[in-house]
């Protein structure tokens, strides 16, 4: 027995390697790459996929965080003009930008990229049609004026922040038309090839994507803003968050992508590790179905909002990794309205219930998905509502089961979240207040014409000051009448090695803005 143990030990020691440390010009990221489906800008819709695509391709415009607010800035388009009627956008491209293939980027590539995206009809393909450009009208609405000028014509005079915000999505990444068409098979517009190859002008090129193993990017030495200092980026597939943490602490990876708040709390004591947090692009809410029993009465809806203890949810369930934002517009967005009128007030909630004719409360079913976080939140809400006499039965199901039910208005009460598709107040005002867009307000049967009117008006207002006033009015009205209690705004968080510099600058705005890896370097 002893001999065997000794043998095993010697064998292991003899074989063991001194872990090869990461070179200074290489960045290794531990992430769950199992969620990746494609790295084609015209098709990608997953957050991690968008991050990688963001490093491979440039867009006409991008976002930058100016004074804490996401603001559109020029990228491939050095400037743009908006017509008098607010429907036609003319983009003037920078001259002399080369794709990694060496081809020059021109208006043809821009027109091709947008049309290609519309023709492919992928999960993100409803974004541009939302503002009036679709595959039926694209020959008239996406126009090349000359080699360096492109015009986009939208159906209505949307607020510019909406239009530009939608264009910063992954599909706005411009592909190299000649290179892509070279690899076209059976008229697929190069989709099969572009799934795991790149043809962009961005700071990096895709070297390889070994599914469920790694994605490797190499610096584009001819990048028009200058060659990046980090020459190689490796996304290692580490699905298990505990392993991400171990590998980070050991120095085998530079960034851990999918940690949970518990990990971060424990990592705080490690001097080699830094933690960065950014306001996220989504929120968590409880909604009641206004078509169901007691919830038809706005006073009952208000009672629910006063019964919830928001601070406890943020501090106990989320360990503080969440922002208290109760309004329609997220922090970091234009027209953010920093008023949070609701805090737990049991007396007030009870009074409202009594006025509505439910002094003894009632019984209701709350549905939610099966993550630990949601379960904890649901239990908390159950306890809070019990204090005003409402008996909540929590029903846990898979998201794929819950959403169809939700879409059919088949619930009484729901605990869910909403994520941005473009960082603009409109992306919250419409779904949460305008039932005519058949989104969250409609699902919760809140058929309120005044709220719908304001939400629509905000979407067309081009004067920023007037626009913010509209959203402020809408939010105030929605607080008192709407079916939603926003629990918090998400926070994005990462842990990284202290050798990595400029992390905050590179990642600010994540994930509405993909990280700018060119800003990173190692010491």
């Amino acid at each position, binding site marked *: *027995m002893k001999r065997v143990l000794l043998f095993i030990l010697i064998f*292991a*020691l003899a*074989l*063991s*390697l001194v*872990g*090869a440390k990461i070179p200074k010009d290489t960045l*290794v990221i531990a992430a769950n790459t*199992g*969620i990746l*489906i*494609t790295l084609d800008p015209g098709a990608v*819709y997953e957050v991690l996929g968008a991050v990688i695509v963001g490093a491979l391709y440039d867009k006409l415009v991008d976002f930058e965080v100016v004074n804490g607010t996401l603001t559109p800035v020029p990228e491939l388009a050095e400037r743009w003009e908006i017509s008098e009627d607010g429907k036609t956008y003319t983009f003037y491209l920078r001259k002399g930008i080369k794709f990694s293939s060496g081809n020059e980027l021109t208006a043809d590539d821009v027109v091709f990229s947008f049309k290609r995206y519309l023709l492919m*009809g992928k*999960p993100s*393909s*409803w974004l541009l049609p939302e503002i009036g450009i679709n595959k039926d009208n694209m020959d008239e609405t996406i126009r090349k004026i000359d080699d360096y000028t492109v015009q986009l014509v939208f159906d209505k005079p949307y607020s510019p922040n909406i239009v530009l915000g939608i264009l910063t999505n992954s599909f706005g990444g411009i592909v190299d038309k000649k290179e892509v068409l070279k690899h076209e098979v059976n008229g697929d517009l190069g989709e099969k090839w572009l*799934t795991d190859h790149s043809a962009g002008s961005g700071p990096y090129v895709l070297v390889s994507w*070994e*599914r*469920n*193993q*790694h994605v490797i990017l190499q610096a584009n030495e001819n990048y028009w803003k200058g060659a990046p200092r980090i020459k190689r980026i*490796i996304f*290692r*597939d*580490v*699905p*298990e968050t*505990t*392993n991400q943490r*171990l*590998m980070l*602490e*050991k120095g*085998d990876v530079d960034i851990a992508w999918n940690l949970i708040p518990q990990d971060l709390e424990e990592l705080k004591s490690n001097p080699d590790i830094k933690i960065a947090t950014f306001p996220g692009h989504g929120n968590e809410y409880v909604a009641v179905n206004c078509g169901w029993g007691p919830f038809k009465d706005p006073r009952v809806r208000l009672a629910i909002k006063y019964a919830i203890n928001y601070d406890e949810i943020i501090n106990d369930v989320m360990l503080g990794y969440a922002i208290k934002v109760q309004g329609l517009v997220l922090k970091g967005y234009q027209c953010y309205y920093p008023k949070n009128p609701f805090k737990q007030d049991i007396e007030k909630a009870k009074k409202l219930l009594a006025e509505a004719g439910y002094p003894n409360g009632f019984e209701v079913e709350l549905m939610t998905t099966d993550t630990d976080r949601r379960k904890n939140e649901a239990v908390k809400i159950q306890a809070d509502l019990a204090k005003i006499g409402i008996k909540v039965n929590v029903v846990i199901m*898979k*998201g*794929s*089961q819950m*959403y*169809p039910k*939700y*879409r059919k208005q088949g619930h009484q009460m729901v605990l*869910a*979240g*909403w*994520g941005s*598709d473009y960082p603009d107040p409109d992306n919250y005002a419409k*779904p949460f207040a305008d039932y005519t*867009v*058949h*989104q969250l307000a409609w699902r919760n049967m809140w058929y309120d014409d005044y709220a719908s009117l304001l939400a629509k008006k905000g979407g067309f207002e081009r004067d920023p000051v007037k626009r913010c006033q509209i959203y402020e009015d809408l939010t105030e009205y929605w607080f008192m009448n709407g079916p939603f209690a926003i629990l918090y705004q998400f926070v994005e968080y990462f842990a990284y090695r202290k050798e990595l510099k400029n992390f905050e600058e590179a990642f600010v705005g994540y994930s509405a803005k993909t990280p700018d890896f060119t800003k990173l370097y190692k010491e």
Partner: protein
Amino acid sequence: MNLLNFIVRRLLLMVLVLFGVLCIVFIIANVIPADPIGALLGGNAPPEVVDEYKKKLGLDKPLAERFVSYLLGVLRGDLGVSFRTNRPVLEDIKKFFPATMELAIAATILSVILGIWLGVASAVNRNKGIDHFARVFSILGVSMPVFWTGLLLLLIFYYKLDILPGPGRLDIFLTPPKRITGSIVIDSLLTGNWEALKNGLLHLIMPAFVLGYSATASIARITRASMLDVLRQEYITTARSKGLEERKVVRNHALRNALIPTVTIIGLTFGSLLEGAVLTETVFSWPGLGRYITNGYLVLDYPAVMGGTLYIAFIYSLVNLIVDIIYAFLDPRMRV
């Protein structure tokens, strides 16, 4: 003739079993009250897009029609196209299966060696230290969740002691061998890439041990019981009374006979290793079929889940068939 007859009969039976698996998998995947489109598009997509997608993936057709077209596809060797990756499922399986197979084989080898050794040692040294150790070891083996064992071993051998590599199949900065069979060990042997071979073997140790742990435990228990049984037989007493060395008695006389039930167990555990790979693959970032099926399941990618399950069922029945044929070949009584 008899043997051939047996094989043909078994093959027909296997086809029947696979058809049964296909039916069950298809029904389970298609009647559960969940919506793959919702999972695929997320919560934000407008309803019109949802309907359009449904049409695009053929989910608006009646169930019977979908079943027939799936069955015809399978007969042609076409497992359909994944909703998620938009690639043929069979192509994906070919890519991921070798990693799972390599892990399952390594786990089998490890558990057979360790299990038999432990079983024999504890039978021979009954109620002594090693026997007690083996008992505790086995109980832990069948009761500890794979997930937890895996993380614990990583914490000790990778993070604290630093003698074994972390998750993955190879170090990230190492050039992998050229893909021939898809197994790192075999490919690096074939191409003479010794660095990759050494690294690949090191990466195999922990996941193979974790995956094979419960199999090791059951093999050890079975071997011990059957060994004790055999050691009580009269021919062992005879051997001993002839003055044979105890070591020779155990190795040459007892073990050979004691191993028969063990072989049965090994055949059976191989199947459970394939299915157990799902968790082990997640803990050890192992790019195998288990993770492919899990990822598919998370977004209700039915073609991927059905194809992967069917493929594993196929391999499992194939292995069982081979085991049975070997038995039949060895022991004519089995051919009935």
